[in-house]
């Protein structure tokens, strides 16, 4: 796979899947959530949870938000054997290339380990799926301040489209009043 092969069919398919399952993720203990994985074993699930958090680290997000990404990766691995292989091999390599298992490493060491493999098929797969899955999750939208669909409230016309008040109002010649 070429570097940054994002917006390929895989990422696009995940976008649909992410819409379908958003809001459904019920997360318990590590043992509970990893037990629900179909293709990845518990250690692989735990590792991917750390990997996905290091790829797009947001302090405001919870593990549950990243677990949903791991579930989407697991789902793709279940329907696409090639993806399963990339994930299995990638995680094994990540553990083998360092002195300790990836999940026991410090955050800085995890970032350094990922930096070394950022051109790999494994990293690109996780990155491209996570990019769509994480940022298309409505729970994530809320935590990062994105408001999503406005049609249900009739648009922003009466809901703050021009409520910015820390700069002067442009003159009407530049910005006429709403009808």
């Amino acid at each position, binding site marked *: 796979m*070429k*570097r*940054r*092969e*994002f*917006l*390929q069919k895989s990422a*696009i398919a995940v*976008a*649909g899947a*992410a*819409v379908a399952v958003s809001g459904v993720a019920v997360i318990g203990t590590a043992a509970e959530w990893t037990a629900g994985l179909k293709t990845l074993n518990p250690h692989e699930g735990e590792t991917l949870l750390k990997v996905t958090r*290091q*790829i*797009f*680290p*947001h302090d*405001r997000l919870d593990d549950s938000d990243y677990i949903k990404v791991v579930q989407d990766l697991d789902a793709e691995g279940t329907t696409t054997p090639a993806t399963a292989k990339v994930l299995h091999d990638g995680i094994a390599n990540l553990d083998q290339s360092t002195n300790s298992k990836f999940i026991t490493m410090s955050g800085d060491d995890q*970032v350094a380990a*990922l930096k070394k493999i*950022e051109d790999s098929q494994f990293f690109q797969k996780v*990155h491209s799926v996570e*990019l*769509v899955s*994480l*940022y*298309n999750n409505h729970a*994530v*939208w809320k935590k*990062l*301040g*994105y*408001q*999503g*669909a*406005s*049609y249900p409230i*009739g*648009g*922003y*016309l009466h*809901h*703050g*489209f*021009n*409520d*910015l008040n*820390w*700069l*002067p*109002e*442009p003159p009407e*010649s*530049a*910005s*006429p*009043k*709403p*009808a």
Partner: protein
Amino acid sequence: MARFDFKDDSVVVIIGSGAGGGTLANELCQKGFKVVLLEAGKRQSPATFRNDEWFAFNQLAWLDKRTTSGNWQIAKDFPNLPAWTCKTVGGTTVHWAGASLRFQEHEFKARTTYSNVTGANLLDWPLTLAELEPYYAKAEFKMGVTRTNDIPGLPGNNNFKVMYNGATRAGYKTVHTGRMAINSRPRDDRSSCWQLGFCFQGCKSGAKWSTLYTEIPKAEATGNLDLRPESRALQIQHDKQGRATGVLYADKDGKQVVQKARIVSVACNSIESPRLLLNSSSSSFPQGLANSSGQVGKNYMRHTTGSVYATFAKPVYMNRGTVMAGIVADESELNLKRGFAGGFEFETISLGLPFAAAFLKPGAWGRDYTRLLDQYPNMAGMWIVGEDMPQETNAITLNPAEKDEWGLPIPNVHYDDHPNDLAMRNYAFKRGADIYNAVGATQTIAVPPYPSTHNMGTCRMSERPRDGVCNKWGQTHDVKNLFISDGSQFTTSGGENPTLTIVTLAIRQADHIARESAKKNL
């Protein structure tokens, strides 16, 4: 709605239902022509659109595989998605943001104005602004463009307030909410703008002009339009005299059928239009149909673009309201002292969080990037749109290595940035940052171009047949009853968003077809 027989060779077949094809179809239907309109995509409506970036992308975008080459960054960031255009009834008018600016007089004379720019295949258009003005007026009236025809401008949103204050403090004078084909008042049986913030995902209020719910239903009401969605044109056929006789296409069930025609119009956007001509080669036209000049697919232009985003200490919520909510026009004027030919505009732009994550720094990851995304609510954005230089080597070609599901070679899109494009982009990045810094930006970021929504020039107009593919009416030099009706007929790109000019040329082309038909010349 009309249904015409496959063997009815009195019909006009138009391929593509966007700004060019959709408009031409309506104009011809109003004049009494029978029109078969082939559209590769499905028919949606404001009711089926969704305020959801990824859903809409999958619903509307042209996702068939393409390959890329050249030194443009798109080839690295989006190797199989060089363009962000649509496969749906209404074409890219479903996705466009609505900015409707006329080209300027000097832009029709790029060769004369900029003289001989090294490496650029510049040519003057075979027409003038004066010839187009009455048609620009018709297009603006048809589309309900704000700040024309006594239609008030749209109210500015938060993103515009940041642009306005920053731009005026940075010394710019012409800053306003633009000329937009978005209703600021109810008009033409369509509502005024709800400030939804999802212009790119299909306008659910119907306030933004799109051929989907203006030209096409009006054409259907005449009884002269036979719209065939999910119909993929594969080849334009011709007779021994070199006249186009019909179009081979795959219908919604995948069955290949031929629709006979007396006139064929190609309006598939600037990648698929030349691809269709190249895929229509025959023993009489071995280089591809209408390609005696060798210029089919060449001179691909995509505007010099890029974006500048900035974060602020206080909230902006750029996602609220019209995406292109305002414009800075000062840099569009003819001014060769900046170190590059051509002009550009700044126009506000906004992305929702899903697409901001995907487009702000393609491929980025880690804490530096998420620190930026954490500030999403405090972010403002603007887009750069400027004239790019036509280069003969920037071209749509058939990729001999890969075929589509109908066995036809897929298109490869090659683009090298011209030094003039780079000089303009770097200047615009700097001036865009100046605008935001003037109102206290905490960080500005220069964002590389997105996949191209403005695609132009690959079947260009020329005075002499040897320099281009079609004449000033979009009629191909080689095949008299074959017309180019989309942005691929642009001789040069100008510095303005192309849709208004595409619609203008389509209205004018319909008059020409009617006139020549009456004289029995077609």
